[in-house]
């Protein structure tokens, strides 16, 4: 004789929150494994394969980095300008000049910049990468590559991981430069401060550990975004209707993981 146990509120909470966390965790583990195995297989690739892999890496850097320069530059200038305008709205006009550089360093370069760049890369490149890989699965390109002795993780995944990661770091530098430029233009328009004073103020409030944290964020966000995109792209079931779902899962997981990584890096860097 069996007993039916009524589901209590804690059980329901665990089921509704626990299962998605476990599922997300399994995808994270899958993405880490994929990144590790692609790195291992790329290292084991024959010397002749370097040119083939390099060609895809160049394409990926061009798409993720070069083609996104316009939007990243515009976003940087506008963000820098917005932060300065908002700051001046709440700061007293007298004595505000020194604070503007500090705010730009604190808010944009340390925090907003890496996240905005990550979101742009997720929107443009991660979705494109997961859709492309999903299409390759559905169209049998991956199977055919394997039949030709070309390991897809070395030839398809690795150059995308490396390309998106390098491009994200480069875009972050562009974004910061653009944000400083945008912030300075607005500052000059309102309080007429000199470029040297403004840049000096920004530099003064940026510690080495902040710059290291920014670079670490660029690297980590790039690695997270690319490995998640490739993981979901390759996990597509052989049906065209699965491809948009892979793109959606890529966006959701990549955004969430970038936010968690940002939190961890910021917390760690502030304690140093």
């Amino acid at each position, binding site marked *: 004789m069996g007993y039916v146990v009524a589901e209590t509120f804690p059980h329901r909470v665990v089921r509704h929150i626990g299962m998605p966390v476990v599922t997300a965790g399994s995808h994270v583990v899958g993405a880490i494994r994929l990144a590790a195995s692609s790195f291992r*297989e790329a290292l*084991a*690739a*024959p*010397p*002749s*394969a370097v*040119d*083939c892999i390099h060609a895809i890496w160049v*394409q990926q850097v061009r798409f993720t980095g070069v083609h996104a320069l316009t939007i990243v530059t515009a976003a940087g200038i506008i963000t820098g300008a917005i932060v300065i305008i908002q700051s001046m709205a709440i700061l007293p006009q007298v004595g505000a000049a020194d604070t503007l550089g500090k705010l730009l360093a604190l808010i944009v370069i340390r925090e907003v910049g890496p996240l905005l760049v990550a979101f742009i890369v997720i929107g443009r490149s991660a979705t494109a990468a997961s859709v492309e890989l999903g299409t390759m699965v*559905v*169209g*049998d*390109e*991956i*199977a*055919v*590559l*394997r*039949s*030709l*002795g*070309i*390991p897809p993780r070395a*030839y398809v995944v690795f150059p995308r991981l490396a390309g998106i990661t390098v491009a994200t770091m480069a875009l972050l530098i562009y974004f910061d430069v653009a944000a400083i430029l945008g912030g300075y233009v607005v500052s000059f328009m309102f309080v007429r401060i000199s470029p040297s004073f403004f840049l000096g103020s920004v530099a003064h409030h940026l510690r080495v550990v902040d710059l290291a944290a920014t670079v670490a964020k660029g690297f980590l966000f790039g690695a997270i975004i690319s490995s998640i995109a490739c993981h979901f792209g390759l996990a597509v079931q052989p049906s065209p209707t699965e491809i948009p779902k892979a793109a959606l899962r890529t966006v959701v997981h990549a955004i969430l993981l970038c936010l968690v990584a940002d939190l961890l890096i910021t917390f760690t860097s502030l304690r140093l």
Partner: protein
Amino acid sequence: MEPILSARDVRVSFDGMMVLDRASLTLRPGDSLAVVGGSNSGKSTLVRVLAGLIRPSSGTVLFRGKPVRSYAPLAVPWPAGIGYISQNLGLRSNMTVLDNVQLPLLYHGHVPADDARSRAYALLDALGVTQPLARPAALAPGEAELVALARALILEPHVLLFDNPVVVVDVECSQRVLSLLRDLRSRGLAMVSATSSETIAGIVAESVRLLRQGRMEEP
């Protein structure tokens, strides 16, 4: 003559559903076999198992006496063991026809780049592909299939697995393709074609096996 490719009691099941049930076949150099079956009969799965792309649930697939799955992707010999043409062709859409065909040679570095290019051009020419610098999307379906055939043959395989060879009944291409395949078979190429058409089976193969709901039958 020793078998070059053999499958014995191969079973494949997906999510508890039996797709292939105790499929067995033996192929010797120069043999040509057509596996004929309707939709969902398991013929594409059989071809993928023979290519080492799907691991069977049970049973063995041997290429020259060695399990096919032991053919690690990183250690492909040349001339290659098994050439595979997928039903979807699997051509890389962002590469030209020429790059698609010469990619395996360039990746593995079997021959210098100039040699790879001239071999690819020669093979495409022999098959009558007239647009080597076009993207696959710009080609007619028949011509795209020829490109996939050229890519599978560029590594000079001992066994060719052809899933749904429609091109052999193409008015424009069939004679060139069949002539090339006849020539290759006379030099020892063994071939397995999976098709739902008995007409195609009769054109490409000397022997035919029927596949019904995953079970192989004698015709």
